[in-house]
């Protein structure tokens, strides 16, 4: 990830230089100038690989998933065959690979990647497209695709072909088992085409919505995380949407003193204030926008004041922390929450996004019998008025699982076993709240205090909390 960022930065730097050079020099290009161009051959796989095309499976995938099949084919002498493994296959959990050329190709004369495909069942290929080269994947295009058991032609439009003057990522896919079971699909006549019927572009960012977010000075965010798509109407009348890499878009920041967007869609927050980021592809304005409000630098959580000997700390820069297995268990299948430990301005903080619920599991169950309170610092950037968080200390080691539950914000279910320990009115967007929760007698809660091993925070009312920061989680003795 870090390496990738480095490549991005390097690239913008080079482009910046080029720009500076070109504006400072008015000399026109002479007629004799011949620009170096890459070959524009359209074929990827017809009856075998086109010259210089290589197969690179993804790490963790079933490496032998791809073979050339001479029995089953749409046309000619062979087709590409992909064997998706069963769940639990020791050779790989899924099938997935990129097909990359050694020499880049000029694809700017085409408007789509097309192929014929069929499956042994009507599987939904999770991700399929082009532009993945195991480099910076600058012009990555991804869509999903529902197979049928008969041969059918599929069209993956190029979001803006003028960008693809030197592309190496000819094709890529990733597909897991369907309902636990593997299956096989075939792809044939894989090539770039100029169909002339890919029309009516409708680019979109943030899924077409206008969103407002708090972001902090000095942070960088990637527009790739904000739902970038391009939709075309095909000859069949079908609207085909693909996920398009930021480099296909031209981004505009309404206030470059606040936010600047690089050519690969990295937004850097450079000043306090508000900026609206909009985008277009090939001159067509994208629906949706991202407005960033930058109140200043990331506010560091208040430093706890108690001495180490009065606390059992789970997450804090001030104290020695007990070992944990994780700060986010990524519990399948219902958890949406992403993110965990992050370092912002040199401070460790837990940074969760798409927050519905998240748990921290301790390596060794804690005896909190001597403790009187649990303290946690919470900050939310968007603050729904109906915020209702359920915070649970759980002991999974007692004969039956026991727990103490606490409501933060409000308790819309009026659950008497989970009293409100912090009123919603005390929260402020983008400001840390320190919440002190009394440890109640076991007779009230059932919690066996000798072996607490899980701390769970739930967004119980599914309030619109995109980002939540958590810091300084510790039990203490008053």
């Amino acid at each position, binding site marked *: 990830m870090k390496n990738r960022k480095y490549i991005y930065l390097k690239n913008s730097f080079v482009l910046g230089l080029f720009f500076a050079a070109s504006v400072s020099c008015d000399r026109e290009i002479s007629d004799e100038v011949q620009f170096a161009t890459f070959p524009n051959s359209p074929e990827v796989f017809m009856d075998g690989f086109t010259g210089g095309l290589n197969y690179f499976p993804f790490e963790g995938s079933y490496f032998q998933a791809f073979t050339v099949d001479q029995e089953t084919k749409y046309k000619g002498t062979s087709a590409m065959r992909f064997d998706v493994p069963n769940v639990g296959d020791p050779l790989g959990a899924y099938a997935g690979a990129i097909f990359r050329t050694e020499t880049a190709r000029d694809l700017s004369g085409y408007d789509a990647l097309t192929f014929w495909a069929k499956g042994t069942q009507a599987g939904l290929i999770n991700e399929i497209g082009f532009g993945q080269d195991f480099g910076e994947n600058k012009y990555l295009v991804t869509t999903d695709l529902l197979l049928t058991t008969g041969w059918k032609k599929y069209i993956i439009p190029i979001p803006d072909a003028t960008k693809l003057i030197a592309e190496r990522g000819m094709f890529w896919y990733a597909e897991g088992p369907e309902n636990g079971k593997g299956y096989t699909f075939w792809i044939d006549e894989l090539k770039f085409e100029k*169909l*002339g*019927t890919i*029309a*009516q572009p409708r680019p979109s960012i943030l899924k077409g919505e206008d969103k407002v977010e708090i972001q902090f000075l000095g942070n960088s965010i990637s527009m790739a995380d904000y739902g970038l798509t391009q939709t075309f*109407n095909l*000859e069949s*009348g079908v609207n085909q949407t693909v996920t398009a890499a930021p480099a296909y878009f031209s981004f505009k920041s309404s206030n470059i003193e606040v936010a600047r967007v690089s050519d690969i869609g990295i937004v850097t927050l450079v000043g306090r204030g508000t900026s609206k980021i909009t985008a277009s592809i090939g001159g067509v304005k994208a629906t949706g926008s991202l407005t960033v409000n930058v109140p200043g630098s990331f506010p560091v959580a208040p430093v706890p004041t108690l001495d180490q000997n009065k606390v059992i700390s789970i997450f804090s820069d001030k104290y020695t922390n007990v070992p944990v297995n994780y700060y986010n268990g990524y519990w399948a299948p219902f958890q949406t929450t992403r993110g965990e430990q992050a370092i912002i301005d040199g401070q460790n903080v837990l940074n969760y996004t798409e927050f519905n619920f998240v748990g921290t599991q301790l390596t060794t169950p804690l005896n909190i019998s001597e403790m009187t309170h649990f303290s946690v610092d919470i900050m939310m950037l968007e603050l729904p008025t109906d915020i209702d968080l359920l915070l649970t200390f759980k002991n999974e080691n007692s004969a039956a699982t026991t727990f103490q539950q606490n409501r933060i914000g409000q308790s819309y279910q009026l659950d008497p076993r989970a009293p409100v320990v912090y009123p919603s009115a005390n929260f402020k967007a983008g400001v840390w709240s320190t919440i002190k929760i009394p440890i109640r007698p076991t007779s009230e809660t059932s919690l066996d205090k000798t072996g607490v091993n899980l701390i769970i925070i739930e967004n119980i009312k599914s309030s619109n909390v995109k980002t939540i920061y958590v810091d300084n989680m510790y039990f203490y003795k008053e």
Partner: protein
Amino acid sequence: MEKILKRKKMKKININLMLIKGLGFKSLFLALPLFVISSCSSDEKQTVAQFTELVMQDEFTTDGAPNSTIWTYDLGTGNSDTGAGWGNNELQSYTNRTENVKVENGYLLITAKKESFNGASYTSARLTTKGLFEQAYGRFEARIRVPYGQGIWPAFWLLGANCDEVAWPQCGEIDIMEYRGQEPTTVLGSVHGPGYSGANAITKSYSLLNDRFDTGFHIFGIEWGPDYINYYVDDVLYNQITPSNVKGEWVFDHPFYIIINLAVGGNFVGAPNSETVFPQTMLVDYVRVYKK
């Protein structure tokens, strides 16, 4: 620019006409349409007029409402003559509001919107020259960019000026261009008359290869004489309908008027769905009518 386009087009049409008459073929490429046309048995005797005298034109050069000396409107959701939904279960209510019809930047814009209006879920417009311009025979053509999407149904067509006295389809209907928004590469040309109307109309489609009708302007036209109607798109003559093609009386012998409309839904296209983008606008660059 317009003039050059026109000259180029006329020249090409003339070549086609020569081929129809069998006056000559200059190359193998040009000879190709000849085979298509000469398969009609009446070709040898047929006389084809060249319609060169411009008798009506609207280039849509004045912004605002369309020229009221040429155009009037059909309004609402149909009437007792046509039946509800204009006889086709169409879903729009036609208006003459600026939102639905206007001239701007040299084009006539007919816009279909998704909005509740007088009990309909969509609004659009339908312009006619009824009582203002009616003519038998001639060359009728328009340069149009059609919209797109499931359930979108633009049309450029002629209706017999006697349809108020003689019931449809006896009064006759000539569809110069119809198009289904979900089939963006294909247009259709048809005639409706007694014994060959509705689903039994005499019709032929014309499809573009590696192109579509909603991304640029195309010329849609007919050349209509006493015993033939030639259909063309741009410089391609793609069909000829003669009395021998229709399974009933040939009723294309009296004045007709022009209709340009943008319907939403209806039997021909089906209803729009969640994928249909609104609003949708049909652009008309010009309408021109010639006679002999």
